[in-house]
């Protein structure tokens, strides 16, 4: 179907060089920074999973409490119990990485299904999907998660289930409006006129060729959301429990020392949260600006 691709020039694709050439420099910087963070997170996750850490994250060293960065082999210093902060930060990624991927998978899969139902077939399905979206959007996410935590056990996978499900409407509405836009295009009309099966049009011509950018953007933004939720809930004491480190409970555990003026044990994980979420946001928005041409 190469010859129809000329009709899709408004919509960028990941491998479409012309889009990258005329991209804004700022957006490219966003993307480079975002990719750097993503790679850093993935590499750290793998290192953590393989236990390839500079120090044992649980090892208590009472002779070296709250050491500043770069003392005695501790690159990021130690916390209030003399535990190596860098190792704890790396291990802390375990708390959100796989659950976050689960949340993304739920949001993208269900969001795509609902979006296709609403956009491609429309009618009553469209109305129903809108109502379900509005219903899900009525709940403040954190309050809904607290309800789930009260009803079931405070488990990270329960929490991420909620995050995934509450992200469905956003994905569905993007896919829906994209399909409504694509349906006016000649190449979809041609595909329909040629008698291609619906699923071929949907999977190949709509989703694969024209929606993968949206899905990747939503995946990065969804990861940012998942990290935010995981850290907030660990901070509130419902996620990962001490002594297993998570960025949220590390900030919380350092709170008392923070008020005494020892900022670093709380600040290091807080900065990790800040730079990571910033990276995912910038990657998503940078890709969005370039590929979806949202900039005015």
């Amino acid at each position, binding site marked *: 179907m190469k010859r129809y691709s000329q009709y899709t020039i408004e919509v960028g694709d990941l491998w479409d060089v012309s889009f990258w050439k005329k991209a804004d420099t700022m957006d490219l910087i966003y993307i480079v920074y975002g990719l750097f963070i993503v790679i850093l997170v993935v590499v750290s996750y793998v290192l953590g999973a393989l236990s390839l850490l500079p120090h044992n994250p649980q090892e208590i060293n009472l002779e070296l409490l709250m050491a500043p960065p770069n003392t005695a082999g501790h690159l990021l210093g130690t916390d209030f119990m003399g535990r190596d902060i860098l190792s704890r930060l790396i291990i802390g990624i375990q708390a959100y990485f796989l659950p976050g991927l689960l949340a993304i998978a739920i949001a993208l899969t269900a969001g795509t299904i609902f979006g296709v139902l609403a956009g491609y077939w429309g009618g009553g399905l469209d109305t129903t999907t809108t109502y379900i979206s509005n219903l899900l959007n009525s709940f403040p996410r954190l309050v809904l998660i*607290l*309800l*789930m935590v009260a009803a*079931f056990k405070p488990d990270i996978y329960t929490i991420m289930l909620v995050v995934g499900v509450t992200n469905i409407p956003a994905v569905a509405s993007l896919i829906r409006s994209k399909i409504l836009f694509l349906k006016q295009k000649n190449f979809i009309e041609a595909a329909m006129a040629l008698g291609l099966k619906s699923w071929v049009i949907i999977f190949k011509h709509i989703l694969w060729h024209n929606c993968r950018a949206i899905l990747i953007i939503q995946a990065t933004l969804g990861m940012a959301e998942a990290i935010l939720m995981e850290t907030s809930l660990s*901070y509130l004491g*419902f996620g990962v429990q001490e002594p297993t480190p998570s960025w949220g409970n590390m900030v919380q555990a350092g709170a008392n020392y923070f*008020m005494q003026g020892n900022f670093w044990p709380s600040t290091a994980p807080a900065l990790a949260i800040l730079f990571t979420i910033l990276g995912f946001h910038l990657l998503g928005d940078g890709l969005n600006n370039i590929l979806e041409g949202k900039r005015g």
Partner: protein
Amino acid sequence: MKLSAIRPIALLLARELAITALLILGVSFVVFIIIYLSPGDPFGTLLKGQTTLPNAPENIRGALGTPPAWYAQYLSWLVNMVQGDFGTSTRTGLPVLNEVIRVGINTLYLTIGSMMVTLLIAVPVALFAARRGQTPVNWVLTMLAYVLSALPVFWLGYIAIYISMHHFGLFPLAFASSAQKWSWLYFMFPVLVLGLSNGTTSEVVRFLREEMSRVFSEDYIRTARAKGASIWKHSFKEGFLIPITEIIASKIPFILGGAVVVEQVFNWPGMGRMAWQAAQDRDFPLIMGITLLAAVFVRMGSLLQRFVHILVNPRASKE
């Protein structure tokens, strides 16, 4: 205005009200189903430590009768709620509705205040960007909005508490009582912290900038500019009022979520803190009441947004 002109608008407004009522019903159903599906036996919790008789749970269950089917349970719960009976908290024994409304007002202050702070930051940045296009200043401001949105709100809270303790000699963890001299200052810290880093600033800037620059490039704005009329006046409704109500309505859930954390940090006696406590105690009536009230709050925001939309542009909101 003639009555015939008001009628279609009134119909649209009535439709929005009906939709809101339907959605709130749906919300109550979702809340009910979550609690209904939760594992554990309320009798077990009730009897824990009160009796050692092995067959006590069965006997009590027999005396109280078998529980009705789920839809009957839902309906009776719903009817009670419509009559204002949300049950009593299993921990304190106080009626849920009074408790939730008492703390809900505190959360309302916090939410509205921080929304104002967010808008005070986001609107000028967005206006500047929409009017001037991409300039270095604009880029720095946008970047700042991104950093603010990614800041963990609890950490910013710590910084605020630290600064207020060590530099102003204030301790903002005590909730503002009007008797104190600087009570408004205590009040300001949580509002500022939540307003700065509720995670919505960059999205608000982005959305407003896109909407405004879209409206600024419309034909009727060009006409207005050509004849020397005020652009601001012409673009106000479509380029400012509608997008701003839309973004406020869609961000209320996020700010309420952030309020849970900020209330925890600052010991603010609001709905979020109560939800946190209720989740720890598995206090079902209370957490159900809070979730419902929060959802009603969100829906009211959306309803207001739809009303503004309909009143400003009745034709476009008909579909």
